[in-house]
């Protein structure tokens, strides 16, 4: 990880890390939503 300036009040890193945080959050939020929706797939098992 390159040396970076970070604003302590918001902890927002500049440049590469800011994009990294955004990408991490997006992927994890999509995974959480997918798990939530997939629980309803049990409807396929209903007789």
């Amino acid at each position, binding site marked *: 990880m390159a*040396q970076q300036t970070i604003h*302590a009040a918001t902890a927002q890193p500049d440049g590469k890390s800011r994009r990294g945080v955004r990408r991490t*959050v997006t992927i994890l939020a999509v995974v959480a939503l997918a798990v939530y929706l997939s629980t309803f797939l049990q409807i396929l*098992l209903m007789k």
Partner: protein
Amino acid sequence: MSYAATHDQHDDHHGAPKGFFQRWCMSTNHKDIGTLYLIFSLTMLFIGGSFAMLIRAELFKPGMQLMQPYFFNEMTAMHALVMIFGAIMPAFVGLGNWMIPLMVGAPDMALPRMNNLSFWILPFAFVLLLSTLFLPGGGPAGGWTMYPPLSLQSGSLAYAVFAIHLMGISSIMGAINIIATILNMRAPGMDLMKMPVFVWSWLITAFLLIAVMPALAGAVTMLLTDKYFGTNFFNPGGGGDPVLYQHIFWFFGHPEVYIMILPAFGIISEIVPTFARKPIFGYKAMVFAIACIAFLSFIVWAHHMFAVGLPLGAEVFFMYATMLISVPTGVKVFNWVATMWGGSMTFETPMLFAIAFIILFTIGGFSGLMMALVPADFQYHDTYFIVAHFHYVLVTGALFAIIGAAYYWMPKWTGNMYNEFWGKVHFWNSVIWVNVLFFPQHFLGLAGMPRRIPDYNVAFANFNMISSIGGFLFGATQLIFVGVLIHCAFFSKKKATDRVWEGAKGLEWTIPSPAPHHTFEVPPVINDDELAHGHVND
């Protein structure tokens, strides 16, 4: 490390906000939010504990003593919900909030405003949940698992479901924040395999949370639609199946058990090397063991359902998969013992709680191994043996680790040393009375006493009385803990040094005590000799 010498001069010019509302309600500071989580968790510990006292009071003697059966059922369900979602999980999130940025050299969490929201959702969730006790019809009384069709009879189901959704949203946001922080905000040179074990344990726990909390949300949403919107997910009359709920619930529920114990493993892996004055034995093995336990936690859920009537092949698979967990868990226990072996050990209060954890959690693990055996589980199922097992894991396991962590890091948080004498009084009373409380419950379970009943056969009277006495005294002992915490925070004259403990290593000990409001605005320089586990490749 040169950082510590210059740090306080750099940070003194901007401290905490002056106003109470601004500081505590609007905070984006990981330390303040961590403190809020820990205070909330302690409050919930006493609320959930008071429910436990009522349960033990009713069970003190055979016959109905103090309450109606429905209220007893409310107490067992609410005790579990409050302790799991209100006390244990927020305590670990609080510890993670406080310590993860300090341990990886980050100035704060990656998403500080979301951090604030994650916390402030929780009080509303629990007010909602606890308010059901005062509503006509009462609170949830079908156990924390909320199996249908029993849970569908509760008039307060919607309140409980909404509260669980809020808790889940809070947990998922917290988990995303922790992962984003660890993956993106580490100081230069803090490679993944140089991170403290506590940080590793939280990284893996956060992935578990994201993978399973939405499954719980889905399950309780279907309960809600079954009760109020005419769906039949769990109604055989409409083509549904109540056992499907159990599968989804335990797909969440078993990893949830590890969500409550993996950060505890991380804490013990911080405390033991400090007081043994040795690097942790087998750092990489410890990290891989945590990852292995997390993976296995996804393929063992049906061991909670052996008695429901699973196909034989499924029962055998889940039995062996469950027994496999003892391998990485054994690696961890042996590594903690190996860390202590030949070390210059001292026995301050955090170390006492850590040693008690290792011994008593292992007892809980062994009884878990017993009930992994399908034929044996048919006898243990729904008895007090199960109650004894999971309380050894969650009280002498998770709770003891949290208390140990509080004693360990309290001097760093407050800048003051706690009173060691009263810390030890707290420890010895806790460790004695917790065993008086829970050990007899093994015998009650083996003798056939069912769980979740307000009355029982007179044959179970003696052990129940002993257990209740242990419960009252264990509960009272925790008041000593509160006294020690308050004394340490506000009245202690003994100031903590920056490093606090002679054998402590890691970035968190390079900053002043108490930790300044802002830390690591300039990323620290990592010196491998200062890391808790020494040189990884040694």
